[in-house]
């Protein structure tokens, strides 16, 4: 099972890794996709920054798990 970035097609082994990639890349096209799913990029970042546990990644990973899975 792998997860393809909906923007640049980068392959990740897990949705959490893909979330890390998308937030980490942070350029306009990746941010636009994140916005299109109802998230505010800056809020995800703030979630990440303010607490341990990778909460911002986890929130995005939930969506990515459903939408970007590839056999």
């Amino acid at each position: 099972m792998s997860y393809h970035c909906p923007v640049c097609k980068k392959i990740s082994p897990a949705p959490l890794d893909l979330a890390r990639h998308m937030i980490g890349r942070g350029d306009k096209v990746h941010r636009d996709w994140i916005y299109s799913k109802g998230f505010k990029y800056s809020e995800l970042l703030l979630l990440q920054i303010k607490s341990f546990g990778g909460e911002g990644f986890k929130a995005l990973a939930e969506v990515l798990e459903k939408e970007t899975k590839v056999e």
Partner: protein
Amino acid sequence: MSKYSVIGTRVNMVGGTDKVTGNAKYTTDINLPGMLYGKILRSPHPHAKILKIDTSKAEKMVGVKAVVTGKDTIGKKQGIWRRFPELCDEEILCRTKVRYIGDAVASVAAVDEDTAEEALELIKVDYEVLPAVFDPMEAITEEAPQIHEGVELNINVNRHIEWGNVDDAFKKCDHIREDQFVCSSQAHMCMETHCAIASFDYNGKLTVWTSTQSSYYIQVLLMDMLGMREGDIRVINPYTGGGFGSKFELDSAQFCASLLSKKICKPVKIVLNRMEEFTATKRRTPMYYFLKLGAKKDGTLLAKEVRVITEGGAYTAMGATALYLTGFFSSFPYKYPNYRYDGYRAYTNTQPSSAMRGFGAPQSTFVGESQLDMIADDLGIDPFEIRRKNGMTPDYVVPGQAFIQSCGLHQCLDKIEAHIKERGKLPPNRGIGIAAYGFMSGGIFNWFDTPYAFSAAIVKINIDGKVDLFTGANEIGQGSDTTLSLICAEELGVNFDDIRIHSADTGICPADLGAWGSRQTLMSGNAVKMAAADAKRQLMEFAAAKLGVNIVYDLDIKDGWIHLIDRPERGVSYLDIVKATIRGKDGETIIGRGHYTPHRKGMISPAYSFGIQAAEVEVDPETGKYKLLSATTAHDSGQVINPVGIEGQLEGAIMMAGGYGYCEDQPTENGRVLNPAIGDYQLIRSLDMPETNILEIDTYEPEGPFGAKEAGEGLTNPTAGAIGNAIYKAVGVRINTLPITPEKVFRALKEKEKKEKK
């Protein structure tokens, strides 16, 4: 007896005689016929729009030959990040906006420095001052002014590293600590400030003499920023008075001198003054650290989580790499089964932060080694035991990141523990603290997208047996010319004095990424070794024919004698074979070529150095003032190539890293650096230097030339952490913010007194 003839011997530094006799010519000493002098006008505002720049009065001033502003540029933004264009964000000469006090807006070339300085005062810049933000924790809020268009929360870059299952692992821990630390800034304090002489001629060729850590980078960055071809730009690196990470990006002196020279076809020299050096170049990255560490009762470390917010200043510079490396080295030098790092770099309206000796590792070592002692204390475990239990060992894989081949950490622990035992019981208010570390030995980063090998070298053997060694490596005072000459001499079997090295001139030397990331001994060293071996092979072909040896015999050269390895008495003179080879090849020059690029060596480096340092302090409990009495280091650098060089590097590292731990800082007020002068900037001076000792460790790095790895930058990592731990041992107070000033110690002691009374 050593199996080597040359490496490991004590030799005079190449160029050392020139330096101690005052004959060495640095960029600032070079004067060309008809040369003009340049000065740079800088922003007085931390954040402002440029509405208009009027240079007319300056242009009319007698003695002024040229004035340039952002309008004279081709409008590109510079940065080493050619693979990540969004990170190239610095115009150098700002066109529409300034983002820190010190941003360059115009430059003047005149017949002398005073005229150029006066002309700057005649340039009128109309600004619209904008709200500014200086603290990274404020910069990442929704309310903060946006410093670069489209960058949300002013977060310039973020970096993440993770392996294992951190959340599950914390649940299994017997003890968890959460701590916060703040790491301050630091100036590079090179003896030689940034400077350049640019000479553009009527044939369209540009030659730049400059103080730099990478001639090749500067050549290509100038090409990008000036719209020229690489081959039309020659960058020459004369003697250089230090770099420490501050001189491998294109700077305002190099760019403005080149732009001015291109405009008027005359050589232009720009030398930054010390105040510009303090306020308008780059600096060490300040960092806010949030650490969570979990362990079993017996001291086994199960999980670590690290969050870092760094003060980036106005531009990306090399800060993105510092952000990544501080995360990577936060796991060093231990085997964490579960690890998570989240790092964020915030733009602020302050001087950009960037690479500085250690590249993020001194920060992570200070916080990590402090917290490790704290958790050991909580668990009642000896600091050596917890390090031994969890320390890296040879052939360890850092999941998804790195493969450690040689690792002498445990030998280092043994040596330092024995050293401390020898010291015996200490008098009151004295303490010895330890800090362990690891560091890369050549950074595997190709942000620059170079198509060349990371290092390359050419060896030319002359008719008299003397050897010319050409390398793009940059000698910046760290001794790379000496180290590379030793490697070349050893491989060729000639004397050290037979080597004449030509380095860091893009006109005659092969490309090399330069002196950063502790890469020259290993990477340039491998290239030199390969080039020498190539030249040697050509000699051996003739030697074998002349000796008529059986094919089963291998030949080698030692002390000018080419001989059968198994029958060393049977051989032929190196000089005779050199002559025979050149004659036999119809006069063709003997040239050996070598190159090195790491492949399949992980994300960071092909090899890692390790070590542990013990710092001894004596604290005056009345005032908080303390003295750093000694620093003893066991450093694993593989096979030692240049022992005198290591001693010099160690002393320099203690001075710089001790300063970082003890006193160096660059406080600001509304974006203005408050101590931009040597008189105000506190650092460890010669009279404050502690006794420094190095304990030898015997290891061999398979990836390094003759088994060698780095022995310079890594040494700057442990000192701040060792000082912090030593103060705790001496008087029982823990300081979590750098620098650990006497004032902070005094306040902590008072706080401790209050608590004890309660």
